[in-house]
């Protein structure tokens, strides 16, 4: 009896209890695979590879009742990760009223029939929209594109004579576009054993976009020959294209025990 509670015995007992705990939790959450049970006990979905404008869609909207405008994007699937790159460009004037909505429609599928049946069964009883949280749209390190144009000619990114992005371009781009609230809508698609999800990014604040003061040509410190060429033009306009990144975790807790109330 004494030997049962020595150091080795206690460690072995702890391991056994942890194993049983994991198995019990996984069993409670309805997973069948031992691997999945030990990994998460809940997630058994992955993104469906699909074509743009088929199931997948990205669009922007001014306010809840505003017109919806499709925007271009590149998409890439890696099972559990959906990468959406090169969205837009979106004119920053869309942010001026603080009511921009970015809508991303995607599709997921369950890895086994049991999961999708359960998802479909629970999904019917759920409130359609779920608040996920708030995230900032922050400028990422990708080199911004900039151009000075006069209606006929364009100078800027890509010109051989220009070695780097002028510092004034970086200073004009805001570091952040403010916080966006994230909402998710998930609906089961009975016809193809999949689920359609819609992520809505709702702007919550108006960022300071246009900097104070005026932009002058000399602030770009361009090569002399190029400066001569540009300064001979009238009505110069600068266009700046910056890239802002975000990451959204997809919450599927409502399809597992202990998630949303039924």
């Amino acid at each position: 009896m004494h030997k049962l509670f020595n150091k080795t015995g206690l460690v072995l007992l702890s391991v056994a209890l942890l194993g049983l705990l994991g198995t019990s939790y996984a069993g409670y959450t309805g997973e069948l695979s031992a691997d999945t049970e030990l990994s998460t006990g809940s997630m058994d979905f992955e993104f469906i590879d699909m074509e743009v404008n088929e199931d997948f869609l990205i669009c922007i909207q001014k306010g809840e009742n505003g017109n919806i405008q499709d925007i271009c994007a590149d998409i890439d699937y890696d099972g559990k990760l959906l990468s959406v790159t090169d969205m837009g460009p979106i004119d920053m004037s869309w942010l001026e009223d603080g009511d921009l909505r970015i809508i991303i429609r995607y599709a997921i599928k369950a890895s086994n029939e049991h999961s999708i049946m359960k998802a479909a069964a629970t999904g019917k009883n759920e409130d359609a929209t779920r608040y996920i949280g708030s995230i900032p749209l922050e400028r990422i390190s990708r080199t911004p594109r900039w151009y000075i144009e006069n209606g006929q000619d364009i100078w800027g990114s890509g010109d051989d004579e220009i070695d780097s992005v002028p510092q004034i371009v970086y200073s004009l781009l805001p570091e952040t576009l403010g916080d966006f609230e994230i909402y998710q809508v998930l609906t089961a698609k009975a016809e193809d054993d999949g689920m359609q999800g819609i992520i809505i990014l709702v702007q919550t604040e108006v960022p300071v976009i246009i900097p104070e003061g005026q932009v002058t040509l000399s602030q770009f410190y361009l090569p002399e020959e190029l400066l001569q060429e540009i300064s001979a033009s009238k009505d110069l306009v600068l266009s700046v294209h910056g890239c802002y990144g975000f990451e959204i975790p997809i919450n599927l807790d409502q399809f597992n025990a202990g998630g949303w109330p039924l």
Partner: protein
Amino acid sequence: MKGKVLLLIATTALTLLILTTSYGYWTDHLSIVGEAGFEFRLPVINDITIEDQSHDEASDDIERSGALSDKTTVTTEEDSEQQGTIPEGSEEQGVDESTEFQ
């Protein structure tokens, strides 16, 4: 000795259990990552002064005739209208207010 071996095995098993569970937890979430491009447009004030070549040539003629000893900088009418304030530090970057273009 037997106890030590059991202890080692148990510790290894426990470590593996924790590692696999943690790995599964952190890698098995669905997520969407995005990069959105935003752009804006601003007017640029042309504050660079260009010397008018024809005026320069005329000035050179005058200089040669000895009537004018100092070089005169003449700006075009368009540039005079658009000329703004040269920011501090422009000379350091080689962009001078009186930059002479040929």
